[in-house]
């Protein structure tokens, strides 16, 4: 759920974004802290900060895009994966292209 201010903000997690994504959002930072208790909430928080970023990382099923990997504690995550305070999240572009 997006944080609309009516509920206490989740504790922050640390997110490292892929460099190719930064090129699409002028001003975006490689390493950010956002409040989130799941990967889905993390996507909402990123989108609130840089509108449109969720669409670049997630599709409309909804799910993390096929060639984007989100690692939480070293494991590939889904949008439902829970995040605990201080978790390190890595968003990485997978191998693809041609």
């Amino acid at each position: 759920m997006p944080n609309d201010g009516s509920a206490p903000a989740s504790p922050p997690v640390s997110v490292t974004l892929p460099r190719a994504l930064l090129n699409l959002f002028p001003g975006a930072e490689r390493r950010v802290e956002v409040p989130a208790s799941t990967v889905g909430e993390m996507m909402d928080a990123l989108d609130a900060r840089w509108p449109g970023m969720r669409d670049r990382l997630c599709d409309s099923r909804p799910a993390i895009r096929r060639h984007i990997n989100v690692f939480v504690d070293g494991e590939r995550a889904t949008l439902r994966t829970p995040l605990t305070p201080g978790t390190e999240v890595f968003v990485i572009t997978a191998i693809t292209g041609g």
Partner: protein
Amino acid sequence: MAKRVLILLGTKKGAFILDGDAERRSFALRGPFCETWPLNHVIADPATGTIYAAGGDAWFGAAVWKSEDLGASWTHSSEGLAYQEGEEPINTVWSLAPGHGGLYAGVQPAGLFRSDDGGGSWRHVAGLRDHPTRPHWQPGGAGLILHSLIPHPDDERQVWVGISSAGVFHTEDGGATWEPRNRGTRADFMPEGQNYPEVGQCVHCLVMAQGMPDRLYQQNHCGMYRSDDGGRGWKSIEAGLPSSFGFPAAAHPRDPETLYLLPLNGDIAGRYVPDARAAVWRTRDGGESWHALREGLPQENVFFGVLRQAMATDPLEPAGIYFGTNSGSLYASADEGESWRCIAQHLPLITSVETLVVEA
């Protein structure tokens, strides 16, 4: 006032722009733009000069890019460019067309979207995908794509679209309901006796004759056709052409009788130019007769093809004609096709060619 012509290229690795003078003698290449995303269609809205680029990236999905300064800077958006949760997501944007005060986009899997804020946000024109024939739409080699988009120039309720392989559809109520318009076009890939279905034809490119909204031309997987009644009925115009197969079609900017095609040798013959000799074929009588235009084009060992959105005209006098190849070369004629020269090469695979004329 002096003019300059911009040739807008969509490629497998971003957008490129060739800046040319009004005589179309010298061109300077700029790009790649759009972060080298695979693009299917780069267009300009002639009313505003805004350039739009449609595509989809393997990592970051589908979006429409926009430049309001002739390519110097770009933004992108896909807000609203999505189907309902649970449906197959949009993979890429295939086609763009300004019209009716907005901007239309065709996507894969096939569907139609419209933006009323210059590509900032989109809404689904859902009536097309609600058509009862949709379960019978079959993807072609590039997927189930909506690739041809023609807003009626005067009537905001009318739009034609081309979907591979579903055929041509037309709305006259602003997109709420759609009617297949494929009568007379063949589907050679269907069993004998079922070659003229209501839908399922593999239309490759649909264009409108300038100044004659009821006249449409169509390059199909199975033949070339003309309609004089807005697509209700189609007549074959392939007699005199070297093949019934090809992808692009380009209408003359002023003469509704003049059309340019670039036939390829056949769908299972390699899909390059016939006899490995490049030619653009021109009719000046609505497809009754055809003439090969070869001067300046390579005539030996040519194995390129030209994709469905990769041929265009400019509105200057005489008209310029351009085509881009799947081997990354761009050919230009400044004299309506009489003579040609290569104005760019070693580019990525060219998916689309469009033009924009601006004040110098």
